[in-house]
């Protein structure tokens, strides 16, 4: 029966090519626009580190003293003292101090011109914690952290730029005025968004040079910048004792029990600092959030993209109304034919399913062209001067979603017209013939 309906549907679609083309176009455009923006939203709100995002935590305390009345959330960064106090306590399974700064980098042996790059200062656990993939070598040891070792890990990008992608472990790099030894080279690695830093909606590349936290404090002294300050620092070149937040702490906690005990530990710390008079607000402003909670709290998807998604949904609705109107017109135009079929014994159900098959065919065609339009749309997004442009690709899930949405949309759009068509009263139509 289905094959027969399909044949009928194709014949009917061929009969009025312009109307068919209009319907397919309407659905295709609606699907294309909405799936393009939905794909972007889906990719932007994705998990930057699937599998581990639930065990990585971002503790926050509020060192601001005196506290501002309009300040209801702690800053997404810590002052040096709080961060190092919490890190030194070693209460997590793994933990990393993180901060970044601009620095001049040269590879003296290569004779290439110097580069101004972003350097990440961190501690040994950073690499295993965030599952950073290595091409050559490995990260540094806890001993290196303690010894202020002059070592560095570089990105795949920088390795390609300076050493043509060869194994550069053991070679030396001049970071500002200090020679450091390369101990590891990363594979291309780009968590999206760049979740471990405090800047919201950051889809940029990772840093190019990774240096032990303690060593970098000496190497790049004076070039660290504060996220924000609540008192003017006496000496902008030494943020260690300033009333500024500029260091981020990450903790890996493998079980919920550990997570809650760690949260208690941070709260106790804040209370103790409050009792000492260093903090104005204690545990009320303590947050220990996992990756996704923290990203959601700071807003993952840029406003422009969310606006576009709204716009595209309105657009899909317009296209849907359009498709329903046109399908209705198409089915009711055949009232005479339907009347004859009903009079010859076709049930309402049969008419209904025949109409739905026709709507489904239009949906499939619309979905196909909509998918092509989605590809075009994503290509357009990739040409945009935005830092998430590289993400805009269709994955299998989104491909299936597009098709299912297209067919579901047109079946939905076919529902009312098909119902109307199946209600055609045969006698009236036969009289009119």
């Amino acid at each position, binding site marked *: 029966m289905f094959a027969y309906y399909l044949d009928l549907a194709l014949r009917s679609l061929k009969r009025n090519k312009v109307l068919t083309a209009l319907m397919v176009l309407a659905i295709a455009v609606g699907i294309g626009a909405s799936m393009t923006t939905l794909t972007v939203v889906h990719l932007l709100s994705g998990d930057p580190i699937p599998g581990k995002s639930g065990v990585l935590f971002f503790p926050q305390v509020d060192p601001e003293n005196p506290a501002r009345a*309009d300040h209801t959330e702690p800053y997404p960064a810590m002052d040096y003292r709080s961060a190092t106090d919490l890190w030194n306590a070693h209460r997590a399974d793994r933990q990393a101090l993180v901060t970044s700064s601009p620095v001049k980098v040269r590879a003296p042996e290569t004779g290439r011109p110097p580069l101004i790059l972003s350097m990440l200062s961190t501690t040994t656990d950073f690499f295993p914690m965030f599952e950073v993939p290595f091409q050559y070598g490995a990260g540094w040891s806890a001993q290196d952290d303690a010894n202020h070792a002059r070592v560095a890990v570089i990105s795949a990008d920088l390795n390609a730029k300076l050493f043509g992608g060869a194994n550069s472990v053991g070679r030396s790099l001049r970071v500002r005025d200090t020679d450091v030894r390369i101990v590891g080279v990363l594979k291309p690695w780009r968590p999206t968004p760049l979740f471990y830093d405090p800047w919201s909606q950051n889809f940029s590349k990772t840093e190019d040079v990774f240096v032990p936290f303690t060593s970098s404090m000496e190497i790049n002294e004076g070039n660290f910048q504060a996220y924000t300050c609540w008192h003017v620092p006496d000496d*902008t070149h030494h943020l260690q004792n300033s009333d500024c937040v500029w260091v981020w702490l990450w903790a890996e906690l493998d079980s919920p029990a550990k997570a809650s005990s760690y949260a208690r530990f941070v709260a106790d710390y804040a209370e103790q600092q409050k009792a000492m008079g260093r903090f104005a607000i204690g545990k009320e402003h303590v947050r220990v959030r996992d990756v996704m909670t923290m990203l959601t709290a700071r807003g993952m998807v840029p406003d422009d993209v*969310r606006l576009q998604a709204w716009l595209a949904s309105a657009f899909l609705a*317009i296209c849907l109304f359009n498709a329903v*109107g*046109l399908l209705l*017109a198409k089915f009711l135009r055949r009232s005479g034919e339907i009347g004859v079929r009903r009079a010859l014994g076709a049930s309402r159900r049969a008419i209904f399913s025949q109409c739905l098959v026709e709507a489904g065919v239009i949906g499939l065609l619309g979905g196909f062209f909509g998918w092509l339009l989605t590809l075009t749309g994503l290509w357009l997004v990739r040409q*945009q001067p935005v830092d998430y442009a590289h993400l805009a690709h269709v994955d299998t899930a989104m491909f299936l979603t597009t098709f299912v949405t297209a067919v579901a949309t047109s079946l939905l759009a076919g529902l009312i017209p098909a119902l*109307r068509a199946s209600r055609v009263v045969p006698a009236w139509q036969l009289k009119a013939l």
Partner: protein
Amino acid sequence: MEIRPIFASLRKHRIPACLIVLEIALACAVLCNAVFMISQRVSDIHLGNAIDEQGIATVVLRGTDDNLVGSDIPRNLAALRGIAGVNAVAVTSTLPLSHNNWGWSFGLDPDATISDQKSHNVSLYFVGEGADQALGLRLLQGRFFNGDEYAGSKFDTAPLPETHVVVVTQSLAKKLWPGQSALGKTLYSMPHYYTVVGVVADVLRPAFGNQAGPYIYDSTYYPLSAGGSKGVLAYYVIRSAPQDRERIMREAEQKLADLNPGAVTKAQTYSDIREKYFADMSSMAWMLVLVCVVMLAVTAFGIVGLTSFWVGQRRRQIGIRRAVGATRGHIMQYFQTENLLLTSVGVAIGMGLAFGINIYLMQHYEMSRMPWYYLPGGALSLWLLGQASVFGPAQKAASVPPVVATRSV
């Protein structure tokens, strides 16, 4: 024109009529808001900026030795002045729209501190001698800095320079001291204080959020000596006639690279800096334009399709009307009036919806209130669209010969 028969026939086609009304309502709501967003972005892209945008090129020099800048900067400037066609050269800490923003909050009372809620956030521009000429700043009141003020200003360990003079923009002067002359007034952030010696025409900040607000011109200028600049003065600003700019920029970059072998140079014309800053906004604006055009096209196709269907369905009725004396004009008018009625209901709902969406966007996004005239504007364009798209099918209807009435359909 009798409209009762139209109502009667619309009542028979309730679902398609409702669909068309809904489609028009939604299109009207989206159109009003999208056009409003486009206009906001376009006005942002064209924000005024009182520097010589067409004549400025810049080379950013980073990675120099902070201890040698006292002699390096004068040497570099002298070399740049030697390039043929250069009108003025100077060093600054940043440029408008360069994203390299250094903000600070000042109060108007001597006891003001940075975390005061009353204090005003401004952008800081540290400039070397001759920057007013190189940038093309337009002085409106007072004076720019004199040689002693440049020579005497330096960075110590504090993040603000050791000087006591400042030049502010006109907008900032009006905001801080409404109805008074800004000259001689003082900005405080103890232990630092700066007295206004001059007011310049409005220059944009190096960076502001996604949306232009009343704060975009809050820029302040401070003199700074080369020797005391601690590497802050990294932007070499080179002003020339616009047609020489590209060549001079290349030569300047080459010269600076040769003179400072260990440093990193980056050359850009000012027009490029500006274009890059607004690239996001202009691509969003184009996207919105595209959406509007396609949306209107889809709506028009919908109207054409449905009206054509109605015309086909009513051939016999039209034939009868023609046979009993209706002119072709009457038939045209019938369909045009029908469309006008449907569109009117649609835009009435659409204007309400547009207003609602605007309120929602104001609450959830940085969006300002839509001026009232966008609503009738959107309504008018949908009326026109409706009439334009109904014209073809209506003409087809008018060409139905009266003889149809005597045949069965």
